[in-house]
């Protein structure tokens, strides 16, 4: 049967070429489109994470719900020592966040002030790269303040100006300090930029009595895909009921849902393409089969049974699709691979969509063998389904009738 199928394919070139071409195109389309969708979601996520949220964050229970100085993490060093033993963690840093009043000569504004470890933050988040004026912080920054552009404008400050801070220390006592504006940043998120300032932890800890304490620990991973496994390891090593370790999936739940919605719409459109292509492949298969009615009639008369007829059709389509897929997959895979390393850049996209959290102009593709495999599976399935109707059509003819067919 197999060789017979092969001969038929070569003989009926028109149908073979069209089916081959259609399968080829649809495979590439499917793989590339899914890869682009997955890639853009991943990049959206990474970008959102890079700004400030971590892939994994460790909190004291209730800090996220209630907040305040009651639920700070005590003895941070013990935890970070344990973290450095875990593989998969690329970097981590501790932050102490508090809310207070910042005042310039004429204006005041409520702001979140975060004590950070400048050297570590450079690796972990993009706040250092968001620098617009002045300098980012370092170990010796002392009372330097790194402030968001929106806040700088609200307080009408210039670089080097003095800013006074009043708030509550970690033991709820009065805290007050004079800072100096050393750097201005702009992340693109206008809410973030008009309510957040950063200061060197070493200095801030003295003012707020937060040495060896933290609001939370921010963790960056080697590979975002391993987030759940690494989190498991962290929870086991910490072994502390009062702490919780959360992945971005919980921290950014709405973003996850938004990506799912986007995926649904993407798949709906893909489904449309595949349905149309399926129909056309089926039509060509049908035409081909209906022009061979006499042939099949003869075959049935000389003893070919129904099962063999089906295998014949089956082999034909499998050979055609395999050829098409074999050719298309490397090409599509290469496209995905290339664009995952060198993403497509749409100039100005981040400006347009910054309110939705998109901060980069790049659209990288996602190169994932598992995804590609199931994509191929779908294509094969559709192709095989396309011969079902032609098969039943053929069988509706009695062999003698068929041989007489015009």
């Amino acid at each position: 049967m197999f060789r017979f199928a092969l001969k038929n394919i070569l003989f009926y070139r028109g149908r073979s070429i069209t089916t081959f071409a259609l399968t080829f195109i649809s495979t590439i389309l499917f793989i590339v489109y899914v890869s682009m969708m997955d890639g853009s979601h991943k990049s959206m996520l990474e970008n959102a994470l890079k700004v400030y949220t971590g892939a994994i964050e460790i909190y004291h229970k209730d800090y996220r719900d209630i907040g305040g100085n009651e639920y700070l993490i005590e003895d941070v060093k013990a935890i970070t020592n344990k973290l450095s033993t875990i593989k998969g963690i690329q970097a981590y840093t501790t932050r102490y966040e508090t809310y207070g009043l910042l005042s310039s000569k004429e204006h005041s504004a409520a702001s979140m002030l975060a004590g950070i470890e400048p050297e570590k933050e450079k690796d972990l988040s993009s706040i250092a790269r968001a620098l617009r004026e002045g300098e980012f912080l370092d170990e010796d920054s002392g009372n330097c303040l790194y402030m968001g552009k929106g806040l700088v404008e609200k307080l009408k400050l210039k670089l080097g100006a003095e800013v006074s801070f009043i708030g509550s220390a970690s033991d709820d006592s009065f805290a007050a300090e004079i800072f100096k504006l050393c750097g201005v940043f702009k992340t693109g998120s206008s809410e973030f930029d008009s309510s957040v300032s950063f200061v060197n932890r070493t200095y801030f800890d003295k003012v707020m009595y937060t040495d060896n304490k933290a609001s939370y620990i921010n963790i960056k991973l080697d590979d975002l895909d391993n987030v759940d496994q690494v989190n498991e390891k962290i929870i086991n090593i910490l072994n502390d009921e009062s702490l919780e370790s959360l992945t971005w999936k919980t921290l950014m739940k709405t973003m996850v849902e938004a990506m799912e919605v986007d995926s649904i719409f993407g798949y709906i459109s893909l489904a449309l393409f595949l349905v149309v292509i399926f129909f056309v492949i089926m039509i060509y298969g049908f035409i081909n089969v209906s022009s061979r009615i006499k042939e099949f009639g003869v075959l049935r008369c000389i003893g070919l049974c129904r099962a063999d007829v089906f295998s014949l059709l089956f082999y034909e389509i499998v050979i055609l699709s395999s050829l098409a897929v074999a050719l298309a997959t490397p090409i599509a895979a290469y496209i995905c691979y290339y664009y995952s390393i060198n993403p497509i850049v749409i100039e100005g996209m981040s400006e347009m969509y910054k309110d939705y959290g998109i901060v980069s102009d790049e659209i990288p593709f996602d190169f994932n063998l598992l995804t590609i495999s199931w994509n191929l599976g779908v294509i094969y399935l559709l192709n095989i389904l396309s011969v079902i109707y032609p098969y039943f059509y053929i069988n509706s003819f009695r062999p003698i009738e068929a041989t007489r067919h015009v």
Partner: protein
Amino acid sequence: MYRIFILILTLTTVLTADEARLIIQKVDNNIRGKNIYMKISMKIVSLRHTRSMQMENWSQGSKKSFVKIVYPPKDRGITFLSLDNQMWQYVPKIERTIKIPPSMMLQNWMGSNITNDDMVKQSSIVEDYTPRIVKREGKLVTMELIPKEEAAVVWAKVVSLIDISTYTSQKDIFYDEEGEAVRVFLYDKVKKFGEYYLPTYWRVEPMDKDNSFTEIILEDVKYDISISDQYFRKSALKRFSR
């Protein structure tokens, strides 16, 4: 600062509807327009730490108030001035006078369990609530206070336990709309000042946080003393900081 005391004072003297209203109005009228000096100790206890403060307060009427922190030494010299509806703070450590924007004034006061609601309220308890006697046991009367529809208070109900021998409250429980208790005010150590009784020990406890409360002790209360106008000027912030 002054307004909390008005609230608590008036709360302590609620009785039956008419009687209560008469007395409260008298108290209200008497306190308003008078000068008061108070020395107060405050202890704020939470899960992790305990904090003690001592402060002195000078008030004239209901619009002018000057507060100076005298303890702990670290915070000594911090002063607050409340004039009409504006508030300033002076912090000697950084030698700066800072104007507190209204939005900050509406937040939790100095980490204690006293909320914006207390600070901002302008109408007295008589105007905002309809009182009802629920139980009488000797000299203790349990009163239920339901806020009027237009009253700008967040509580659905306040239940007070009043000692009618001194017309002071021993306990006030504040309820939310679901009928759950949100916080409790406890009063003790009633003393007589001039014509009025005043509990000199107060304790505020939130119901949703364990082991967390704020204690206020009135160490010294003087009525009708003459308070210099100097206290109610911006220059007072730095001058009386020492």
